[in-house]
């Protein structure tokens, strides 16, 4: 992957000036590149990765396995897009294996998620079945460990 993208993926808060120093490039050029990446939607967006438990968030998250009937011409795309557009859906992937879509949803309460599945998702024409797995505990999300490793003690001076 492009080194600039890699850096932004690691920490999107780095400014073009900081990135320019690290990558040994011109800050204006970096700013232009970032703008282009944003405009072409290579960079889809930015967000903070939040430890919800620490933030005191009572909300629930679930991963739903969805089986679909593919359509002639478009395969799963139309239906998958339709599902993705619901606000409750935080991510949606077509995957290989025993089911077709892995849909991640979040809601304020268990009931809210259950209602979304029962009323919105399952009732869509083309949806054959769903299986909902509620998230119980987060160990790692978006590349971050929920419990970071303890700082390791290096010798302060070593040859």
């Amino acid at each position, binding site marked *: 992957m492009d*080194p600039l993208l890699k850096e932004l993926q690691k920490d999107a808060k780095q400014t073009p000036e900081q990135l320019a*120093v*690290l*990558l*040994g490039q011109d800050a204006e050029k970096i700013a232009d590149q970032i703008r282009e990446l944003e405009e072409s939607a290579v960079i889809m967006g930015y967000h903070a990765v939040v430890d919800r438990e620490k933030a005191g968030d009572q909300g629930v998250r679930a991963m739903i396995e969805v089986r679909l009937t593919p359509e002639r011409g478009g395969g799963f795309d139309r239906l998958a897009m339709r599902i993705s557009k619901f606000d409750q859906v935080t991510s949606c992937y077509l995957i290989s294996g025993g089911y077709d879509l892995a849909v991640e949803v979040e809601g304020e309460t268990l009931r809210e998620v259950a209602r979304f599945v029962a009323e919105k998702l399952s009732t869509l024409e083309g949806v054959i079945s769903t299986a909902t797995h509620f998230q119980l505990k987060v160990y790692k999300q978006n590349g971050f460990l929920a419990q970071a490793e303890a700082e390791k003690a290096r010798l302060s*001076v*070593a040859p």
Partner: protein
Amino acid sequence: MNLEDQICHQLRGIPRSGIRDFFELVQAKDDVISLGVGEPDFAAPWHIREAAIYSLEKGETSYTSNLGLLSLRKAISKYVDSYFHVSYDPAKEIIVTVGVSEALDLACRALLNPGDEVIYHEPCYVSYSPSIVMAYGVAVPVETRAEDNFALRAADVEKKITDRTRVIMLNFPTNPTGAVEPPEELEKIAKLAVERDLIVITDEIYSEIVYGEDNGIIPAKHTSIVTFPGMKERTIFLHGFSKAFAMTGFRLGYACAPHVLTEAMMKIHQYAMLCAPITSQAAAIEALENGAPMMEEMRRSYAMRRNLLLKRFEEMGIPCFEPGGAFYAFPEIGKFGLSSKDFAFRLLEEENVAVVPGTAFGKGGEGFVRCCYATAMDQLEEALNRMGRFISRL
């Protein structure tokens, strides 16, 4: 009984390491940001640690063959062939050691008769000269120059060759300078070794941490002296897992050499060490088989921090050549009117930043300090801010 008198003469002749004095000073202070550490700031990648845990879980707690696990030697052979383009027989030409340090000691002890001379380049890693002397050899330093970016001139090596010279010892990329050796100069040194029938010991520990195009974001191509004509049969190739795989505490290295030489080194190793720890060997197999992506990620991270350091040095008016490898910069501080030692001591005293005086790595290090940039980015930035403040007062 005066116990001082009981210490053997050979050891008494070796001065205490300059780094140790400095270390004790740093230890006594709180909140020091240290650029004085000679190791990666990463923990060993998890998949490597996990392989070590798994090995322990399986109850692999025994001795291994003196030479090291055959499966590890096979993996080493394959790796050395693919990265360095030189092939060694895992059955007879590879010995697994406790770090490159042990391998270096074995090589010196296996080769040197009292009074034999070993040529090596300075500034260099602190253990070369003592390793030579402890093996009753004579350490013959060749100074590398700032104007050459601390690369070694073959002509300078040639001037030091005498009838007693047995070995040329090389370490590129170099600790403490970060210097790399241009292949054309390396070739000349190889020719010298062949003409004068000398053994070459090459410490390749930083070979993967090299900076090429796009300001080092792309790795450079590394050339080892062993690849030149006539060299494989006279080279002891030393390498290990500490730096590129961030496995310093696993203490694992290896030596590759013609069978006669590994056999001689093995004689010492089997009596002095028996074998390298099996847990570390299991971890090393995992590192060689699956460690390349993480290794590159770490290398790239060093490259970016190197760029930051060089940029800030430039802004502060501290002259520093662009190091081609390792994770050290060797800025020139002579113009601030302090010796290396005074510079490092005062920087520590006044700003709580530890750098290592260049003189800890040989006389030629006067006027320089070693800064290790394998340090967390925020710490590195803060250390550079403090350094800027410090030199503005000088």
